């Protein structure tokens, strides 16, 4: 146990910022947390809340005594949405700064750029976004929601409510391609039909042709997994052309807060399944939002990435304190025991031992004509079960691979 005096000094240290804390703590250097988030470039509007969430969690944890009594030193670098910079800065944090844990990355492309570099070290890596799922890698802990939590809930609901014909607009990189593959698989199981799929290069902002292709294909609803500020212009242009179709997505509303960025009714009739969105109205969530807005009064929206980034530090704290060690192998023993849980603002979330992905309480939300958000359905807690079902078991074997419905582990 640590004495009250030590905690008092830690508090004092936190108040003094990064000032050294005194001779009693000289033997306990701070824990270094490396953070890679884009706060400039095209994805800055999403990355900024991620930085803020990390800063808020670090401040809170440091104020309440740190992790195992050690303060956290947050080292943030801005890769500006450039995958080569992700790799360069990742190497710098891992090899030069010797961080105890690496967190971050927005696009799946940046995560896949980082992962081989992390795999060569023994440093744990937290990826804090929802994504297309399937990464089976012992070095990586995923904090966001995955397709079995997002698509397996959303797509059947959309089919039941709006019809069996879907048109897909997806960003043309691994996230969009694999998400579209998930949609094909789930639609096939439901007996639905994908009447069109369009992959859009990042940075494209003009959609007149796409809008007409959609009208020609006559779908019942749209799956919009377009990414980035330029591609988001689709919503404004579709509304102006009076396209007027129901939309579903795994990244709109709670992640890109398009309903806050566009003038109503551009996002009318958009649906998504989310573990977090700022409109969640529970005592825990409201308390969290209050602390966030007190520290960052100008935040337009607390998105799910920022929320997951905040949780990642608390999950790291829980793992280190249960393992009484900052070593990845000791932390993974805690995960393997199934005891890696925290009480997050959404409720209790746990890391699944087989896949190292996180369970989430999922809700289906929809946007109305005035851009008001309503909860349509509460699914309760959903486990990240898919990787375990197809044979990924990180407690036994480290695959270091990303699986998709068409790329499954080889049966051995």
């Amino acid at each position, binding site marked *: 146990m640590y004495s009250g005096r030590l905690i008092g000094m830690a508090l004092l240290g936190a108040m003094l910022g990064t000032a050294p804390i005194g001779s009693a703590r000289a033997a306990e250097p701070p824990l270094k947390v490396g953070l890679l988030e884009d*706060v*400039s470039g095209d994805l*800055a509007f999403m990355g900024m809340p991620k930085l803020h969430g990390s800063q808020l969690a670090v401040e809170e944890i440091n104020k309440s005594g740190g992790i195992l009594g050690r303060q956290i030193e947050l080292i943030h670098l801005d890769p500006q949405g450039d995958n080569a910079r992700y790799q360069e800065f990742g190497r710098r944090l891992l090899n030069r700064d010797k961080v105890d844990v690496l967190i971050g990355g927005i696009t799946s492309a940046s995560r896949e750029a980082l992962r081989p570099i992390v795999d060569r070290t023994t440093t744990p890596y937290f990826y804090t976004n929802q994504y297309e799922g399937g990464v089976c890698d012992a070095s990586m802990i995923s904090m966001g929601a995955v397709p079995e939590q997002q698509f397996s809930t959303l797509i059947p609901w959309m089919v039941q409510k709006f019809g069996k014909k879907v048109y897909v607009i997806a960003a043309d990189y691994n996230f969009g391609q694999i998400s579209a593959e998930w949609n094909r698989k789930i639609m096939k199981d439901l007996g639905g039909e994908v009447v069109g799929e369009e992959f859009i290069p990042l940075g494209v902002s003009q959609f007149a042709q796409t809008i*007409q292709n959609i*009208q020609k294909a006559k779908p019942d609803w749209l799956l919009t997994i377009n990414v980035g*500020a*330029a591609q988001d212009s689709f919503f404004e242009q579709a509304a102006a052309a009076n*396209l007027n179709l129901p939309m579903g997505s795994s990244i709109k509303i709670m992640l890109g807060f398009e309903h806050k960025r566009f003038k109503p009714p551009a996002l009318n009739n958009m649906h998504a399944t989310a573990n977090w969105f700022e409109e969640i109205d529970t005592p825990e969530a409201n308390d969290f939002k209050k602390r966030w807005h007190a520290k960052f009064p100008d935040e*337009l929206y607390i998105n799910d990435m920022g929320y997951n980034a905040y949780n990642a530090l608390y999950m790291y704290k829980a793992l280190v304190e249960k393992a009484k060690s900052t070593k990845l192998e000791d932390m993974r023993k805690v995960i393997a025991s199934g005891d890696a849980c925290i009480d997050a603002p959404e409720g209790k979330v746990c890391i699944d031992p087989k896949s190292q992905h996180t369970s989430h309480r999922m809700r289906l939300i929809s946007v109305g004509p005035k851009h008001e958000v309503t909860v349509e359905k509460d699914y309760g807690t959903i486990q990240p079960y898919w990787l375990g079902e197809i044979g990924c078991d990180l407690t036994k074997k480290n695959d270091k691979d990303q699986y998709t419905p068409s790329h499954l582990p080889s049966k051995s």
Partner: protein
Amino acid sequence: MSAELFSVFYQFADVFAFLILSAAGLAIVFGMMGVINMAHGEFIMCGAYVTVGLVNLGVPLPIAQILAALTAGIIGMIVEFLIVRRFYKRPLDSLLATWGLSLIVTQSMLLIVGSAVRGIGTPEGSFAIGGYTFSTYRLVLFGAAVAVLAGLYIIFMKTRFGVVARATMQNAAMAKALGARTGRIYSISFGIGTALAGLCGALYAPTMTLIPTMGATFVVESFVTVVIGGANVLLGTAPAAVFLAIIRMALNASYGQIIGQIGMLFAVILIIRVLPEGLSSVLVRRGR
């Protein structure tokens, strides 16, 4: 059938308007004056942000758009006076200087205005033909593109300023010897160029997401249109836009946006290889 025909025209008009509006300013600054203005996208962004800011203050959209173009023009003249003026004889250095300016401006906007600004929404209005519905505002954009071309023609071919400006661009020393105030000509021309960039941003502001790096989505299209158009704004940029718009529209419609983009850039490579001076070199020669 007529619905299909109209839809083809509409798609062509849409791509054409995008190319002309994003390239018109650059055609003057780069095509005529020879300044490789890497901050072109930031003047577009400036027009978009000023428009949205004024609309939020209650100014009607068309007036806000005109004021935004004027603002970009005035800022352009200030930039010309402070920076660009020193680089007329060093085009490659002008690239570096304006690129630096572009980085400073985008990052400052990020720090001052923030990473995202709420949009103002496209003006109401859509119409239906056959099974398709179209946004009226896209046709307004096409009309604006045609008006910009007409305006440039009048300014540079029918006014005294235009004659002196063209003389200055061709041979500054001779024009000066004949009494033209070349410094002022350069300043006004640069101002017209950046005002047109601002107009592009102002016109597209209602239809897009506003972020500090939004200018980048226009820059590739504007440079390729000007480069394959060549030095003559009127006989180069307009045919280049028609040509690229047809290629891109046809490929977009048949094979989707990826092939559309690849195909357009491939056509650009071919043209630069065959006609290094751009399309206007052929058209102007024929015209003589």
